[in-house]
């Protein structure tokens, strides 16, 4: 059930980045063990929003994130990414859309161990342009310094702490200036201090670069620092609205002071 509030994701006059209407997802379709993981999801996320996606385990958060990230296809309903229907897109088209429009931050950092921190941040550029160009390198250096890791540029992921790895992963997600970054429990594997640092980075990139975020989290503390909360329960959106008491700047201010 929904809160019935007007969706805060509707931007003034632009095409929303994400528009789900009546989206459902069933696994093992047609089999006795068919599972309905998502049903009747209507969701709109506009440019520059910062939303958290919360809910108990098994509520369908990861499945929804995979659908949003074009890593999986809905069983029913329609998903428009920047106004373009994705239902009939080929795998190559969806791959291209991921590269151009989306950024991913995963719980377990997921840097490529074969590449240095800098090269990891350059990878999206390499995928797009087919070579490590000076422009890609400069952009990656700038991002690394933005996450405070200029000195670690040539280190391999294995030589970095978990918090540093996650900051590199955040820089990588931002490399091609995506419209939307999907973060799956980006702080779930970090100690409190590193988690705060990483989350602060997400908020800063949201503010400075205007890129929208959807952050899956278990942590109510972090959810409270987002502008908007989308809560899933049993595969349906139970709540979707601004973070109380005052959305926007108040929520954005909260993160700047270290917890405790």
């Amino acid at each position, binding site marked *: 059930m929904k809160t019935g509030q007007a969706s805060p994701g509707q931007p003034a006059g632009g095409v929303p980045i994400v528009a789900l209407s009546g989206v459902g997802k069933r696994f093992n379709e047609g089999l006795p063990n068919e599972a309905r993981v998502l049903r009747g999801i209507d969701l709109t996320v506009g440019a520059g929003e910062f939303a958290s996606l919360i809910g108990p385990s098994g509520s369908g958060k990861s499945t929804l994130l995979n659908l949003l990230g074009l890593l999986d296809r809905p069983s029913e309903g329609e998903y428009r990414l920047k106004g373009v229907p994705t239902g009939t897109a080929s795998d190559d088209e969806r791959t291209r859309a991921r590269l*151009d429009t989306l950024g991913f931050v995963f719980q377990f950092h997921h840097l490529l161990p074969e590449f240095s921190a800098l090269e990891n941040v350059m990878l999206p550029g390499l*995928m797009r342009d087919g070579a490590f160009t000076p422009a890609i390198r400069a952009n990656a250096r700038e991002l690394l310094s933005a996450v405070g890791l200029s000195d670690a540029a040539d280190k391999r992921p294995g030589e970095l702490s978990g918090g540093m790895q996650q900051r590199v992963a955040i820089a990588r997600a931002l490399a091609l200036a995506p419209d939307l970054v999907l973060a799956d429990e980006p702080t779930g594997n970090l100690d409190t201090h590193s988690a705060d640092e990483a989350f602060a980075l997400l908020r800063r990139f949201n503010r400075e670069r205007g890129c929208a975020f959807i952050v899956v989290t278990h942590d109510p503390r972090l959810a409270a620092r987002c502008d908007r909360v989308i809560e899933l329960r049993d595969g349906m959106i139970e709540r979707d609205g601004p973070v109380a008491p005052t959305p926007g700047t108040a929520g954005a201010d909260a993160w700047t002071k270290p917890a405790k």
Partner: protein
Amino acid sequence: MRFEWIVAWRFLREGGLQTALIIVGAALGIAFIVFITGFLGDLQRDIVQRTLGVQPHVTIKPLEEVARPLRPGSAGGPAATSPGGSLQADAQAAAPVVLSDVQPRGQRLRSIDQWQATVARLRENADVRAISPLVSGPGLVTRGASNKSLSIIGIVAQPYAAVTRLDRKLVAGTLQVDPGDVLLGRDLAEDLGVGVGDTVRLSTPTSAGDTYRVRGIFDLGAKNLNQLYAFVGLATAQALHALPGGVTSIEITVDDLWNAQRVADELSRTIPHLVESWIRTNQQLMVALSNQTLMTRMIRFTFGLVVAIGVASVLMVAVVQKTREIGILRAMGTSRGRVLRVFLVQGAIIGLIGALLGCAIGYALAQFMSGILTSADGSRLFSAHLDFPLYAYTTLGAVVLGVISAALPARRAARLDPAQAIRM
């Protein structure tokens, strides 16, 4: 393709020991293929040359003479009456019954008709490398009380050396067959007790003979061959065999030993004489050699297969190990095609490095083995030489093989579901 090369190279480099092991494995397999290919080629050439002695690649001889009996009833030509039916028909017509016994004709020593014209025609053939006309017939060599029968062969020194490499088989003296000179085989010279500079008497059924000075002693590698031949000048042999101006055969060297039969077939279409290749006249040897080739091919194929399976299984393991990385790459925007090519390129790189290493090891192995394997006379059974076309073909083949081996793992990598792969 730059992305694929960069990622493939990093994946392989990160593989460390695993990558090193499969490359060394591939290199050893390829080294053996290179070695055995080069070795077999050399060995077979060597076997053929030793077995053939002074037999040429292709020989041109006069066609054999056949008896052409004249029979009554046939209109002045050779009768084609078959026994049985026609005999009955003859009997019914009350014609006299003729019993005839046609004896095959003995082959006398004859010259090739218009042999200079034939030589001129041979020179036009692109495959023919050397041409040597010669006169060969039976004779007797005498020194004191000892007589030995042999073939007295008249040659022109230069072209004959080009065809049979007789110059390399000399163990004493020089390859010189001026009037009054003779070259004898080593075993015959020992039997007669002569050396370079001594004189022997040569005679033939058609000539009372004369004395000749031994100018050189050769060793063809087999005792019976060393006792069989005596070489003299062409004009000398023509006189001895009573064939003034004639030659009994023309011997030819072709560019490729194994092409001799094809060249012989080609020549026999334009030359009205008997054209025989060494392949036709040494069937047993040829059968043995082609069995050897077949066995080697099987061994090479097996080695190639083992290398391919090794590469495939290592890459298969790599796909499983890198499932998560592949998932991340896919999520970040790497297409299925690119993931597929990343692994195909890894197969190609393993094949390429394996081949380069393998060619080097194969050459070293050949060097080493050529020092160990010697033939009966102590000379090297084969020589290790740099065979760049072989290396080029091997490298190309190994790269193709690597890509084919990588096909299955690459397909599996490309089909991974990114959402699931990331959770691995």
